[in-house]
């Protein structure tokens, strides 16, 4: 049997959260009633003309910059011609030759195995409207009627095209996740896969391992989550291997991922594929991005996920904690504040896991809980100073998150403070030893087992609040003493 190697490239569409659409002044707002965020331009009324949105150009340049792309000095818009009811002009203003950003890369890591995925190009285009097909099929063919909402038509859309450098579904998922993190850190899009503000198309082909020749590829669309991306690609790899092992050939075609059944099905073959008749958009002038503009974009570059990872590692966070911090600015602020205030990095990292669980359970945000970095510093001091056990500390943290007050207030109110005064504990130890003379005899004869029992008795007598370390020391010392 041949050993097969998958070759994967991903096209990602990202809707930019600009104030207005790509080529007109309509707001970018999906909460509106259908067909209310529209005007002559985005409805393609006769005579209307596009004007490029500078904020969107800023947005795509920041993405290109973050992906280590070369930002073009001169860039051109093209018309991509195809007829579809939700495309008002029946051409999409897009880019073809001379896109805004070319030749970049993203570093990814799958379980400690790093790799670099090349970025071919990042280009600017506009989104289509939404078709709502009425009837059983849910698709345009066989629909009883189709309702059109043009609120989304003309929303700025950035397309990021990767090189075919990806070799597994896990890598594809890691690539998608890292791209999503980068776009979010830049603040240019909410990049929500489930709402379609970020969308993936996966190009998959199979070749014999070591071969230089690429196999025939398929393009899979309708992938609405990172998990689906991984599943769809795994399915497609397995399907193509089965076809090739069975002596068949893979057709070049567009396939549709079905989330429910977990399979891809053929949408259209290459023979039916369109000739888009690209030509330069005469209604828009070439874009000139001067060096000053490019420098300004570079200067505004925020701390990217890869930089954050390095920094949090430097602060003492382990890999799991780092992942949490990179994905959440709120948690990162808490962590940095607490560690900066002197708290132990590892302990704070463990607590953040509790915090995340709390936030998920209660569907809330850090801000809404009132938990601050200073609370974590205080909690850490209490634990380190032995006034709080590790278990009690987690309970106190829960109380703080629930809004019951500072750690000290919560610990007192819940009566969780440890007795760490040796004199106070000594009295209890004496009393327990006095009641357990036979246990002491055993210990003195060399059987150390009853020490645990005696410690347990003391803890029980103090309602669990005595510092177990001190209790242990006192019991041992007194039992073995004359």
């Amino acid at each position, binding site marked *: 049997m041949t050993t097969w190697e998958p070759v994967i490239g991903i096209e990602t569409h990202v809707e930019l959260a600009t104030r207005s659409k790509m080529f007109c002044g309509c707001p970018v707002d999906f909460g509106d009633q259908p067909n209310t965020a529209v005007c*002559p331009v985005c*409805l*393609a*009324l*006769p*005579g*209307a*003309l*596009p*004007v*490029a949105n500078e904020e969107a150009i800023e947005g795509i340049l920041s993405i290109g910059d973050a992906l280590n792309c070369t930002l073009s000095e001169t860039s051109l818009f093209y*018309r991509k*011609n195809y*007829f579809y*009811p939700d495309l*008002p*002009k*029946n*051409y999409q203003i897009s880019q073809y030759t001379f896109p805004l950003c070319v030749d970049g890369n993203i570093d990814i890591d799958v379980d400690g195995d790093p790799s670099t995925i090349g970025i071919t190009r990042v280009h600017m285009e506009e989104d289509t409207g939404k078709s709502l097909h009425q009837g059983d099929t849910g698709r*345009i*063919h066989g629909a009883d009627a*189709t309702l*059109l909402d043009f609120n989304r038509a003309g929303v700025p859309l950035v397309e990021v095209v990767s090189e075919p450098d990806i070799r597994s579904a896990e890598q594809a998922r890691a690539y998608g996740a890292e791209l999503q993190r980068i776009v979010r850190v830049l603040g240019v899009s909410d990049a929500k896969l489930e709402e379609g503000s970020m969308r993936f198309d996966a190009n998959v082909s199979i070749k014999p391992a070591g071969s230089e020749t690429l196999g025939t590829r398929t393009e899979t669309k309708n992938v609405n989550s990172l998990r689906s991306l991984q599943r769809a690609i795994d399915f497609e790899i397995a399907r193509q291997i089965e076809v090739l092992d069975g002596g068949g050939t893979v057709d070049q075609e567009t396939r549709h991922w079905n989330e429910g059944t977990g399979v891809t099905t053929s949408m259209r073959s290459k023979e039916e594929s369109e*000739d888009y*008749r*690209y*030509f330069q958009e*005469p*209604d*828009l*002038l070439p874009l000139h991005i001067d060096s000053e503009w490019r420098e300004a974009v570079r200067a505004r570059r925020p701390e990217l996920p890869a930089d954050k990872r390095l920094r949090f590692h430097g602060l003492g966070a382990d890999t799991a904690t780092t992942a949490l911090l990179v994905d959440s600015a709120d948690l990162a602020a808490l962590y940095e504040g607490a560690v900066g205030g002197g708290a132990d990095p590892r302990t704070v990292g463990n607590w953040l896991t509790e915090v995340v669980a709390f936030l998920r359970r209660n569907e809330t945000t850090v801000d809404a809980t009132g938990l601050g970095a200073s609370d974590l510093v205080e909690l850490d001091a209490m634990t380190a100073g032995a006034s709080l056990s590790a278990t009690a500390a987690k309970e106190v943290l829960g109380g703080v998150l629930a809004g019951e007050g500072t750690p000290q207030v919560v610990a007192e109110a819940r009566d969780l403070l440890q007795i760490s005064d040796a004199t106070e504990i000594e009295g209890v130890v004496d009393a327990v030893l006095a009641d357990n003379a036979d246990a002491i005899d055993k210990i003195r004869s060399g059987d150390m087992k009853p020490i645990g029992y005696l410690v347990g008795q003391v803890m029980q007598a103090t309602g669990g609040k005595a510092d177990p370390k001190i209790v242990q020391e006192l019991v041992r010392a007194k039992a073995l003493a004359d």
Partner: protein
Amino acid sequence: MTDLADLTILEAGGGLRAGDFSAVDLLAANLRRAAVTEAHLHAFLVIDRDGATRAAEEADAALAAGDEDRPLLGIPVALKDNMVTRGVETTASSQILAGWKPPYDGTAVARLREAGAVIVGKTNLDEFAMGSSTENSAYGPTRNPWDTDTVPGGSSGGSAAAVAAGSAMGGFGSDTGGSIRQPASLTGTVGVKPTYGLVSRYGLIAFASSLDQIGPIGRTVADAATLLEAVAGWDPLDATSYPGEVPAISGSLDAGVDGLRIGIVTELSSEGIDPQVLGATTAVVDRLSDAGAEVTEVSLPSTEYALSAYYLIAPAECSANLARFDGVRYGLRVDGDNVEEMMAKTRGAGFGPEVIRRILLGTYALSAGYYDAFYGQAQRVRTLVRQDFATAYENVDLLVSPTSPTTAFPVGARTTDPIAMYYSDVCTIPSNLSGDPAMSIPVGLDDAGLPIGFQVMAPALGEELMFRVAAEVERGAGFTDRASLATSEVVDA
């Protein structure tokens, strides 16, 4: 007594401000003229009597309040029906837009309203401005007021005929390959294609975006300048509009041509040009020389291929521009069993044969495997034409030629021969490809009594110089003839 409809815009403006007559009177004179001539001409698709009357009344109120600053205040103008007008049916002479009432005004239209102009109505054109005779209209052809057996030229034939007949004091058209200048030439009016970008295209139903330009049609050079000044200037809604200062269009109309270097274009003034047109052109050039201009012959070798390049570039752009007419959102819809069939049936029924011919031509020229041989090659020719003009302007200030190879031709003479029709624009197309300004001035009549036009071309933003020479051409020609349909015998009959 002078019929007010025969005044120039400058004269009418003077009369309005002097209180000799009102804007309502002036409009009434134009509407009377239209009432007499429209049965013969069909220059208008819509006459907006109510809207125009309201605008004239508002103009009278402003005049009474002492408004002195707006030269078009109270002046009736006719607009080509590919200029989008809020609430007034706009069809571009196509069945596919029958009944469409736009929800917005184009920029030029809005500026005319701000200038106080009175919009009389919407004029006929070749469907989507594709043609040179105003015969390709879904609503029937327009005739030439000089001889109703001939065409008025096109595609802005409706506006040209309306201005020549006196049904409006001035008009606006669009010029993609000569669609203002050629009908101006055939109707004895002054027609201007400004520098590409000088007038906003926002609200002009696109034919070929890189070539389309709105411009005025007037009875005199000064009127044309006044009309152009009202609409010129940067528009944030048109990314291709010129952002700098508008040239001083009417700044030097009386400055003469002494010392100017004028080049007569060899390729546009020889083979294929009617001898009478050529004779009139030579006479004008001689007069310019007498007036002190230094006249030389200039060659623009690439213009030989300009017509061919134009008939690839314009159809290619139109194939995309007209894709939006699909029956989904507005205009005609012919139902089908599925969406593709609905779109195909709508477009098949809604577009006329010339529009379909150009969409097919343009779609083919852009197709994979043909793009480079056709569209790519045409773009290279366009670059060469631009270079020819640039080289020529190193040695001369302006270029001149006939506007049209012939005077008005009989109705139906070229409808079955697209190539013959396309050749009508051979002298005008190069300026659209280069983006430079050009205009036509009437300079005489041929033996049949039909007007002959003379073309003046200038470098980009050279409007001041162009109008200066045009004014000299006008003075020299002393052209005072009026279209037969506009003369008093016909009007009073």
